[in-house]
């Protein structure tokens, strides 16, 4: 890795080439140069890095800039499975996986992308296996699969119930093989730098030491994951804030379909920790206060294995009609997920992880007792607008995984398709970015932008002053989202929350109490909150404007799907006044929109 030591020289040299460039003698920004820079080290980021290294025969230098340490990304908490068609001879088919995904999406997915995804998946499963993934096995030594919600065939490939964790381990361990992949751990990327709409690099803050650097690269990939921490009741770890989405949004790339947020039916009360859908796939049932298996009234055929939006609406309806339980300590209402019928042996073999979690965090042994669950923020269908190749509107910049919106998930993602999407578009974008970086030269650096960013962070926030606690802003934001942008929404609620978020944006929270350089998470957190507010604003405005119910976006005041007016993707562009919305058509190849039944 070429680390430019004599940074001031580089700076002067570049500044002489560009007339009118911002210059201030006190500021010297370190430049860390490589060919491809990947922001994020979850499944998508690691898969992209390995592909870029492979595609270039290790001739390219690849930097992974990640705000967490390697192996800490929230991909490790994905539990139940990764979908792929592995056994056509037993009755599965590409056609079926494509149709299930499109139907699950409530017809908002782009069907050409879904097709490409489904066809690419089997080799991703085998590829991970060949790199060491401990997939659970059948007696004959081949890879095992199980049922998941919304599917017509048991095609969730699993490794106990720690699928994301093992995928991360396999990818991280494999990435250590490549000397051309260099990790910059606990570096928080703050902005995308472009020149004449071409990617030039990203700026980032070294959390460990407090340094600021410009990661100059020919190509970039944003793989920073979802934004689930816009909610307090979430399966996501604390690190799942929309930093990457916000960077892209600030750089002029629209955010797509952000109103579609998935609420997983089974978040354990009160922590929100995920109880995998595999629990229902293996035979778990949902019961209300009266001991009734209520899903038979909502999805007579698929019952608990209907798609997640359907099951979550059923749970909230039960609770609202007085058939839920109440957790006195937290005030949260819930239903029971009963796994006692599965049997000890199968639970220990296939659901060991959630057994451990329920025991430790709730004192419940799932072998003999039901788990209290309610719908919980779990996934963001929307994201950075990209095309079928994962390319953004900035040349040389791609996005992959949950941060991106291709879209294969439309208005509602099926379980086991997210880790899969990370793998497929990790690979696609890694390969394309490597090819681009091989053919292109480094672009000129618009130093003014880099220096302005440094100024914003250090002069504006680290040395800034203010009276409002940024953590209080974060908590208030989450409260508004929990209350008004949850499973069921109304125009009034969304509008109220939008006004509140806009008030918060004006408040005086952009400052640090901690003025130190080393491990200053206060500084990073203020930057995160800034992004959370802007992205929450996009979610709320997109949701308020979409006057229909589709997939995970259920409006009380507009209870029906409206294909005539709303069979289209939302695009939110950033302006100084707030998001400006536009729309683009859905790609429909074979499957005409139809009513969904499960």
């Amino acid at each position, binding site marked *: 890795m070429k680390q430019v030591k004599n940074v001031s020289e580089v700076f002067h040299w570049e500044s002489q080439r560009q007339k009118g460039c911002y210059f201030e003698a006190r500021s010297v920004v370190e430049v860390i140069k490589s060919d491809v820079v990947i922001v994020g080290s979850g499944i998508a980021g690691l898969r992209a890095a390995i592909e870029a290294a492979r595609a270039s025969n290790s001739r390219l230098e690849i930097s992974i800039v990640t705000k967490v340490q390697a192996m800490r990304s929230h991909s490790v908490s994905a539990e139940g499975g990764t979908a792929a068609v592995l056994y056509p001879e037993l009755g599965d088919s590409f056609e079926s996986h494509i149709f299930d995904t499109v139907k699950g999406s409530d017809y908002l997915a782009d069907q050409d992308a879904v097709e490409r995804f489904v066809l690419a998946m089997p080799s991703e499963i085998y590829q991970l296996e060949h790199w060491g993934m401990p997939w659970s096995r059948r007696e004959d030594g081949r890879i095992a699969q199980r049922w998941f919600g919304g599917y017509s065939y048991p095609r969730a490939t699993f490794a106990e119930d720690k699928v994301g964790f093992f995928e991360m381990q396999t990818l991280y361990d494999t990435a250590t093989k490549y000397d051309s992949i260099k990790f910059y751990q606990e570096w928080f990327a703050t902005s995308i730098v472009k020149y004449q709409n071409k990617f030039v690099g990203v700026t980032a803050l070294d959390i460990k030491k407090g340094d600021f650097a410009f990661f100059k690269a020919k190509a970039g990939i944003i793989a920073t994951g979802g934004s689930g921490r816009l909610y307090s009741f979430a399966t996501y770890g604390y690190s799942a804030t929309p930093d990457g989405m916000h960077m892209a949004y600030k750089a002029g790339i629209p955010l797509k379909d952000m109103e579609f947020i998935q609420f997983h039916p089974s978040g354990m009360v009160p922590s929100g920790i995920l109880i995998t859908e595999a629990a229902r796939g293996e035979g778990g049932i949902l019961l209300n206060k009266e001991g009734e298996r209520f899903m038979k009234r909502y999805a007579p055929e698929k019952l608990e294995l209907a798609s997640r939006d359907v099951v979550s609406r059923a749970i909230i309806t039960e609770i609202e009609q007085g058939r839920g339980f109440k957790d006195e300590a937290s005030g949260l209402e819930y239903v029971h997920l009963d796994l006692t019928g599965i049997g000890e042996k199968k639970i220990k073999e296939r659901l060991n992880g959630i057994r451990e979690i329920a025991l430790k965090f709730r004192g419940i042994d799932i072998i003999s007792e039901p788990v209290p669950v309610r719908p919980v923020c779990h996934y963001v269908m929307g994201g950075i607008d990209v095309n079928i190749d994962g390319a953004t509107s900035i040349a040389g910049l791609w996005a992959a995984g949950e941060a991106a919106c291709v879209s294969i998930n439309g208005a509602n993602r099926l379980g086991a398709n997210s880790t899969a999407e990370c793998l497929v578009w990790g690979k696609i974008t890694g390969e394309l970015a490597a090819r681009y970086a091989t053919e292109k030269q480094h672009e000129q650096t618009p130093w003014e932008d880099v220096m302005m960013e440094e100024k914003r962070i250090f002069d504006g926030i680290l040395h800034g002053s203010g009276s409002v606690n940024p953590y209080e802003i974060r908590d208030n934001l989450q409260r508004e989202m929990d209350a008004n942008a949850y499973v069921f929404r109304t125009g009034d609620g969304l509008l109220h929350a939008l006004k509140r978020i806009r008030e918060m944006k004006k408040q005086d929270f952009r400052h640090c109490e901690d003025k130190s350089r080393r491990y*200053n998470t206060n500084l990073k957190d203020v930057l995160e909150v800034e992004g959370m507010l802007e992205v929450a604003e996009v979610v709320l405005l997109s949701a308020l404007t979409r006057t229909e119910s589709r997939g995970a976006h259920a409006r009380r005041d507009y209870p029906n799907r409206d294909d005539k007016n709303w069979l289209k993707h939302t695009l939110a562009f950033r302006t100084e006044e707030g998001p400006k919305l536009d729309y683009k058509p859905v790609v429909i190849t074979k499957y005409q929109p139809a009513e969904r039944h499960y």
Partner: protein
Amino acid sequence: MSYVKLVVQRYDPERDEKPRFQEYIVPYRKGMTVLDAILYARDYLDHSIGVRFSCRMASCGSCGMKINGKPALACYTQVSELGTERIVVQPMDNFPVIKDLATDFEEFFEKHKELMPYLVREDRAEQENPKSEYLMKPEELERILQFTYCIKCGLCYSVCPTVGTDKLFPGPQAIAQAYRYVEDVRDEGGETRLNILDNPHGIWRCHFAGSCSAVCPKGVDPALGIQLLRRYVMRGKAPRKKGEGSKPFTK
């Protein structure tokens, strides 16, 4: 119990001569973990507390620290199970402190990497372009499974007396992962790994204090892995030679 006294060891090597302790009064609620208590203090009492955390469900391995002297994950320790109102949190031993509770993992990750934690195969073309899976029976998977649970939290490394005295010793985490790959029926890199480990600072340096296995929050038994690896080193051969890894499925 309506509150806890959280005592945090504070230390910024750039600013402080030596560590000091600072006390915070945190309101208690049922089900509160030690991480919850620390985050309350960080969010509402003192924004400058340095602590690493993420998943809050014992999967990501970020929040290893000493809690009342005993190494554990903060997110995986209930305040109620400590049986005390006063909770003292300190950084893990054997890691350099970055600030307060956050420690530097560079050396730890480097040692993991040096023992080749990936499948080594002769059939590189097959490995990088598969059409099916390498076969593996459930009982073969079972042999490596507990070792694959490692979340790289560093707790075992922090309690290892050998790591404390010999900086060249790879440590329980790295060696247990070496065993995980050596024992994998798909792997052919055993010989190379055994060669790396067969030296006075390697596998022979461990004297089986066993604290690594006792402290692991995920049920991994690194001491067992080290024992089993030693057996292979003494016999002078890995379970498989090059080309002997399990074969891909064919119809």
